[in-house]
C-alpha cells in the first residue's frame, strides 16, 4: 500500500468533515488540544491523535461502543487465547509485553476503521476526516489482513485465481463480514472460530439451498456432511513458518521463513456441533517454539497443545477447483492431504490431531 506523507495524514477536508454532523462538534471535543492559537506547539498540547472509543464516540453511539469492547477487533482476545493455549499462566506477563510491542497496533478503535487507516499502516485520515459508515476495505480491512486474506481474495498469489465472490460478485469484505460481526454484537468470543461459522456459506442471502438434493453430484453423497465447503471450493493458499519477533533500535521487528503456497486437507481440530465436518483445509501459522524467545526463555511450554496446521477458511473460493475435477483427485491421492510427511518432525506431536493417517479410498 502506498505510503502517505505526514501532512496528508492530517489534512482535513472542509466538506467531508467540517460541514457534517461530526464536524459540528469541532476538533477539541474529541481530540483535546488548545484552541485559539496559531502556534503549533501550543495548539497540540494535550492533543490526542487517536481518541478513545468510549470517550469520543460513547455519548452518541453508546450501544455500538459498549458492544465493541467485546469484539475481537477491539479486545484482540483471539491473540491472547492462542498464546495462552501454548503457554502457561506464569509466562503470560512476558507475553503481554510482547503483545504490547508487536500485536497492539492491530487493535482497532472506532476511528481506526471509520476515520483513519489502521495504526498498522501508519495511520492517516480517510478522505480528509470523513466518517465512513462502511470502512473502505482497501484502506482498513486489508491494512491488517493483507498478506494472506487480501492476496487470496484478490488473486494476487501468482497462478491462483481471485475469489469468485470478488472477481465475479464484486463483493467487498463487509458483504459477508457484517457490522454486527465486527462490533461484537453476535456475542463475546475468545477466538474467531468460536461458535457457529459466521458468516456461513448457507446464510439466508447466500447459498441456503445447498443440500443433498440440489442436483449437484458431489453434494448428494457424504461430502456435505463430512467436508467443510472450503475443502472442495478453495484452492492453493499461503502458509507461513517460523516467525520470530524482537525489538531493534526501539522498533518492533519480525522475521519469518519463506512462505509456501499449498492446499492441505486435514482432520478438523474444531469438530463439534457447530463445525461437524471431519475434513477441513488446514493452514500452517507462523508460530514457532521460540517465536518469542526475545522476551524470555521457554514462553510457550505447551507448544504441542495446539496444532501448527490450523483450521482454515481460505478466501479464494471457486466453483470448480482441482478437487472437483474427479473423484480420485482426492480419493486415494495424498497430494491434497496433510500427511505425516508434510509436517516437520518437531511439530508432529502438536499436529497429531490434524494429520490424516488414512486417505479416503480410491474410487474404481
Amino acid at each position, binding site marked *: 500500500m502506498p505510503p502517505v*506523507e*505526514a*501532512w496528508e*495524514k*492530517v*489534512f*482535513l*477536508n*472542509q466538506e467531508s468533515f*467540517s460541514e457534517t*454532523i461530526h464536524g*459540528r*462538534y*469541532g*476538533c*477539541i*471535543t474529541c481530540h483535546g*488540544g488548545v*484552541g*485559539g*492559537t*496559531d502556534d*503549533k506547539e501550543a*495548539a497540540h498540547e494535550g492533543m490526542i491523535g487517536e481518541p478513545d472509543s468510549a470517550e469520543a464516540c460513547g455519548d*452518541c453511539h453508546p450501544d455500538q461502543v459498549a458492544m465493541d469492547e467485546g469484539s475481537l477487533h477491539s479486545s484482540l482476545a483471539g491473540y491472547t487465547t492462542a498464546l495462552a493455549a501454548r503457554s502457561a499462566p506464569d509466562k503470560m506477563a512476558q507475553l503481554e509485553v510482547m503483545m504490547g510491542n508487536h500485536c497492539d497496533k492491530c487493535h482497532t478503535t472506532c476511528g481506526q476503521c471509520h476515520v483513519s487507516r489502521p495504526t498498522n499502516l*501508519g495511520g492517516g485520515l480517510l478522505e480528509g476526516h470523513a466518517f465512513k459508515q462502511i470502512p473502505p476495505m482497501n484502506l482498513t480491512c486489508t491494512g491488517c489482513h*493483507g*498478506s494472506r486474506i487480501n492476496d487470496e481474495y484478490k488473486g494476487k498469489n501468482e497462478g491462483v485465481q481471485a475469489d469468485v465472490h470478488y472477481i465475479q460478485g464484486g463483493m467487498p469484505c463487509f458483504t459477508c463480514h457484517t457490522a454486527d460481526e465486527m462490533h461484537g454484537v453476535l456475542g463475546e468470543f475468545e477466538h474467531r472460530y468460536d461458535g457457529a461459522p459466521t458468516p456461513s456459506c448457507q446464510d439466508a442471502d447466500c447459498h441456503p439451498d445447498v443440500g443433498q438434493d440440489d442436483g449437484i453430484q458431489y453434494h448428494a453423497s457424504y461430502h456435505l456432511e463430512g467436508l467443510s465447503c472450503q475443502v472442495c471450493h478453495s484452492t492453493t493458499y*499461503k502458509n*507461513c513458518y517460523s*516467525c520470530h519477533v524482537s525489538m*531493534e*533500535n*526501539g*522498533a*518492533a*521487528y*519480525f*522475521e*519469518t*521463513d*519463506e*512462505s509456501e503456497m499449498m492446499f492441505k486437507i486435514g482432520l478438523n481440530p474444531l469438530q463439534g456441533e457447530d463445525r461437524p465436518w471431519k475434513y477441513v483445509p488446514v493452514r500452517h501459522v507462523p508460530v514457532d517454539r521460540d517465536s518469542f524467545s526475545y522476551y524470555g526463555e521457554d514462553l510457550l511450554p505447551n507448544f504441542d497443545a495446539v496444532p501448527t496446521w490450523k483450521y482454515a477458511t481460505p478466501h479464494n473460493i471457486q466453483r470448480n477447483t482441482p478437487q472437483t475435477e474427479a473423484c480420485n483427485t482426492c480419493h486415494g491421492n495424498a497430494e491434497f492431504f496433510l500427511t505425516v510427511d508434510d509436517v516437520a518432525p518437531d511439530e508432529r506431536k502438536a499436529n497429531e490431531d490434524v494429520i490424516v493417517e488414512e486417505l479416503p479410498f480410491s474410487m474404481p
Partner: protein
Amino acid sequence: MTASREKHMPEVKGLFQKWGGMVAVVLLLLLAVLALGGCAEPGTITAVEPTATAFPPPPTDIPPPPPGPTPVALDFPIAAVTQEANGSVDDQSCVGCHTDEETLKALAEEEEVPEVEPEGEG
C-alpha cells in the same frame, strides 16, 4: 290689535338691522385682536420645582424562581449541536491550519520511526 301691530313692524325691523350690524362689527374687532395677540412676544416662563416621583415600595416577599427543566433521557438521533452551542469557536484555528495544504506541508514533521524492515511476510 292687528292694525296696531302692523303699524309698529317697520320700527322693530329697523332696530334689529341697526343692533345686528353693530354686533357683527364688535365680533370682527374681537377676532382681529385675538389674531394680533398671537403675534405678540410670549411672556416670561417661570421655572417650576420638579415634584418627586412616587415609586411603589420594593417587595419584601420575593417569590422563588420557577423550577428549571428536568433532565430527561436522550432519544437518539438527537439534533446536532451548533458550534456556538458547543463553544467550539476556538476550533477555527485548528481547522484553518489543517485545511491549508501549504501550511501543513510546511509544518508537518515525519515521525521518526526507526527503519527496521521486517523480513518475511507478516
